């Protein structure tokens, strides 16, 4: 077991971490908003935690709080990401569809260039030697794991709550939802902020886990990776981001023996999955189940 954790502990935690980031995209998408801003908030959260853990200014805080500086960092990252999301979200969410996606891409790129040039974020080199919360890498499962459970419970409850139903109503038809007395702007901003806070907290947890933090953490490529997790997992089910996140982020590791060709295969998987699994993996499982129950008469029917 020890050997297994030593070899695969880092990967295991990474899978959980990537799934969490998939959820940060899933919540806005639940309200029909294609936001690619997650890597921006993820990078921001990481910088906040990294600065709190390394900067001279915070030294007395660290002495006073001990390991308590880490949860404080998560909290700070969550709050600051939330406020920034509110500021960006209120004007940006007037935009629909691809326009919103483009605005969030611009947001991520602007944030990246700023982080690349500020002294406090360590410029192009970034911040390194971030103190560790645990001695071994796999132990970080004790921070990411509970967060994932929390998010799963949250998604489960959200699905069955007034807010969740409002999100889905907006996704299906914003005008109709508006006519039914749902305030679309309020719920869209709410969905955007939930995603941003989650991405910020995951960033803050990842900074000690990854030990260094730099501007490469928040890029356009990452936006697309998270989007692929959600769409290929299944964007209409709360299990989709988890499945997609785990399977797609494990893929490069599984393909590691192929060396240089692995990213090529990764790209092919994206193409084939979007063609042959339009409803995502969860959707495909659902239609297989429908097929077996309705055509073959095996098992219990869904509805």
């Amino acid at each position, binding site marked *: 077991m020890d050997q297994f954790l030593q070899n695969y502990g880092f990967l295991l935690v990474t899978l959980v971490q990537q799934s969490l980031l998939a959820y940060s995209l899933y919540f806005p998408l639940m309200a029909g908003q294609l936001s690619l801003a997650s890597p921006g908030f993820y990078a921001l959260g990481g910088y906040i935690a990294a600065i709190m853990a390394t900067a001279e200014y915070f030294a007395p805080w660290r002495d006073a709080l001990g390991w308590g500086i880490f949860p404080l960092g998560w909290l700070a990252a969550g709050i600051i990401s939330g406020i920034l999301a509110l500021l960006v979200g209120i004007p940006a969410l007037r935009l629909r569809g691809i326009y919103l*996606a483009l605005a969030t891409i*611009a*947001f991520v*790129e*602007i944030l990246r260039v700023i982080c690349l040039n500020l002294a406090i974020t360590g410029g192009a080199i970034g911040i390194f030697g971030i103190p560790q919360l645990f001695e071994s890498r796999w132990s970080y499962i004790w921070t990411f794991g509970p967060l994932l459970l929390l998010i799963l419970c949250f998604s489960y409850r959200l699905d069955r709550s007034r807010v969740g139903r409002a999100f889905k109503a907006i996704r299906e038809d914003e005008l109709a939802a508006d006519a039914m007395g749902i305030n679309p702007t309020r719920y869209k901003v709410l969905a955007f902020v939930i995603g941003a806070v989650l991405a910020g907290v995951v960033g803050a947890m990842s900074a000690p886990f990854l030990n260094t933090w730099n501007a490469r953490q928040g890029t356009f490529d990452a936006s697309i990776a998270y989007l692929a997790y959600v*769409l290929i997992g299944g964007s209409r089910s709360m299990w989709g981001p988890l499945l997609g996140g785990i399977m797609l982020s494990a893929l490069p590791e599984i393909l590691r023996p192929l060396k240089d060709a692995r990213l090529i295969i990764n790209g092919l998987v994206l*193409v084939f999955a*979007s063609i042959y699994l*339009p409803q995502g993996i969860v959707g495909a499982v659902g239609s297989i189940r429908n097929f077996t129950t309705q055509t073959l008469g095996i098992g219990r029917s869904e509805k």
Partner: protein
Amino acid sequence: MDAVQFLQNFLNGISIGSVYAIFALGYTLVFSILGIINFAHGAIFTLGAYLTYSLAVGQFGIGGLLADLQLPFQFSFTISLFIGAILSGMAGVLVERCAFRPLRTRGADPLLALVSSLGVALVTVNLLQYLVGSEIYSFPSDVYGDIRPAFLLHIGEKLVVVRTVQIIIFAVSMVVLALLGYLIGWTRIGKALRAVAENASTASLLGINVDRFILYTFFLSGFLGGMAGSLVGTSFGIAGPYFGVSYGLKGLAVIVMGGLGSIPGAVLGGMVIGLAEAFVPSEYSAYKEAVAFAFLFAVLLIRPQGLLGSSQIQKV
């Protein structure tokens, strides 16, 4: 800033802006027909640059599978640029067949086209890295034949430097723009393309083979993308297989600026962003990369339909 400095920045700006314009037109053409952004466009840009390089220089660097390969032929720069762009156009057609058509025939969620086109981009870029390695390639200085590398304009005591590459880039872009304008505005093919962009199902009822014109569009788009990549590559060098990614994103800023789907808008947007970047003071040059995105963000908030786009009224 004095007048001479202004002139220098202005010339730099319209030169790079003209490339942004033809690159962004590749996005615009596809968007106007399919209403989808082709995220493989940045990869085609990169591919075009490498194709032109290989045709003009005939050999590759130290890394990758093709490291010691020497092509048995070598073309002049003009011919290489043209063939490189044609091949990029064919790659554009391939992108359509692999990433867009299968989704269209299945009536899938347009969001998936985003993922599939990025999948194709990922394959292209990594295949390039596999084949030619990741080091920087620069075109040899004598690639244009025997002409001087720069022209100096003396204005009083001051000097304005115009690199020959800048003139070539501007001239080629203008010729391409003029030809494209003619093709779309004054030929039967252009008329059919405009009809498909206006309404694909009506166009098909009128006997236009929509799928074929979508292929033409992707060919034109790839041609423009590959041409832009080659021009940028000759001017600044090819900084590895990923160098198209940042231009790909900047191209998005250009098309939003001018108005999604608007052809004059893409040209205007390219010029505006090229000039804006050129006028960034040197002490803030580190922030130059953010200029296009700041514009993109601002335009979306103030005038989402872009400078030349018309606002869309949503009908219920």
